[in-house]
């Protein structure tokens, strides 16, 4: 294999700091800082577009945990999630030519791709029924699917996740549930209405209000996301 061409083409921009005026917390980085000289995500995507396997290897190391968590959140099966993760990174390799920096950041592109594949996988497999059952149990035990009780887990959360989850947790539980079902389950408004025994118009309002609040709440982070 040829030596990697992936050296940082330009020094990564220093990450901006998030303002947390309301909470009074100190400013903290939103995404993990890259090592000095490390290639940016855009550098890695360019490398993959050139066909450099090392670029994919680095991108995998950087984001496999996030993408696996997303897949697992959708399909609730460890082994299937691993298989799907591999397929998704293979698709990233194969489809990299379709990535355009003008359309957004590499992570957004990868998350969109991973979510679509995970939801497709969920729908195709018979595991759907089993996952539904698990979801039902989880929903009963934990109506707010994003809220975890484990304090230790909270401590381990990175600044990014803490900030984003703070925004999400500020929503009323019915809005969180509607968004959870739409995003992580790929459910339509009608499906959510049927599942939650809620009028369709109410579901639509919950989604609109919840997404707007999250979107507005993320404005502080917009340079990072």
């Amino acid at each position, binding site marked *: 294999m040829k030596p990697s061409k992936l050296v940082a083409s330009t020094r990564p921009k220093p990450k901006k700091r998030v303002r947390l005026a309301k909470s009074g917390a100190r400013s903290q980085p939103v995404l993990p800082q890259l090592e000095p000289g490390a290639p940016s995500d855009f550098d890695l995507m360019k490398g993959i577009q050139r066909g450099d396997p090392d670029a994919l290897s680095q991108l995998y190391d950087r984001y*496999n945990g996030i993408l696996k968590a997303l897949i697992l959140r959708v399909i609730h099966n460890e082994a299937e999630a691993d298989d799907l993760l591999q397929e998704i990174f293979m698709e990233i390799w194969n489809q990299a030519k379709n990535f355009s920096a003008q359309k957004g950041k590499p992570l957004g592109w990868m998350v969109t791709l991973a979510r679509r594949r995970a939801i497709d996988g969920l729908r195709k497999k018979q595991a759907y029924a089993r996952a539904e059952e698990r979801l039902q149990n989880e929903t009963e035990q934990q109506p707010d699917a994003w809220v975890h009780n484990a304090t230790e*887990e909270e401590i381990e959360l990175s600044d990014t996740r803490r900030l984003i989850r703070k925004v999400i947790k500020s929503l009323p539980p019915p809005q969180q549930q509607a968004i959870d079902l*739409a995003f992580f389950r790929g459910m339509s408004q009608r499906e959510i209405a049927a599942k939650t025994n809620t009028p369709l118009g109410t579901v639509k309002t919950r989604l609109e209000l919840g997404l707007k609040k999250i979107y507005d709440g993320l404005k502080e982070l917009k340079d990072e996301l």
Partner: protein
Amino acid sequence: MNFNEFQNQSRLYVIGALEPEELEEFEKARKKFGKKAEDFITKCYALHEAFALSLRPAKASTAIKDRLMSMVKAKHQA
């Protein structure tokens, strides 16, 4: 549809939650608002990242990366 309504619909659109009948109206408005609409939709995709980043990262099996890189290198060399 005014632009404010379009913005609400865009956030539903990026998470795939628009119903088919809404999608038709949305596409019409998308054309009507042109670049302004496209720019807003692009911004809405930050929601995807946000939802993914809200989750605690999961550990993937080490064998996955080995298999992936073997496949990629084989394809690369072919």
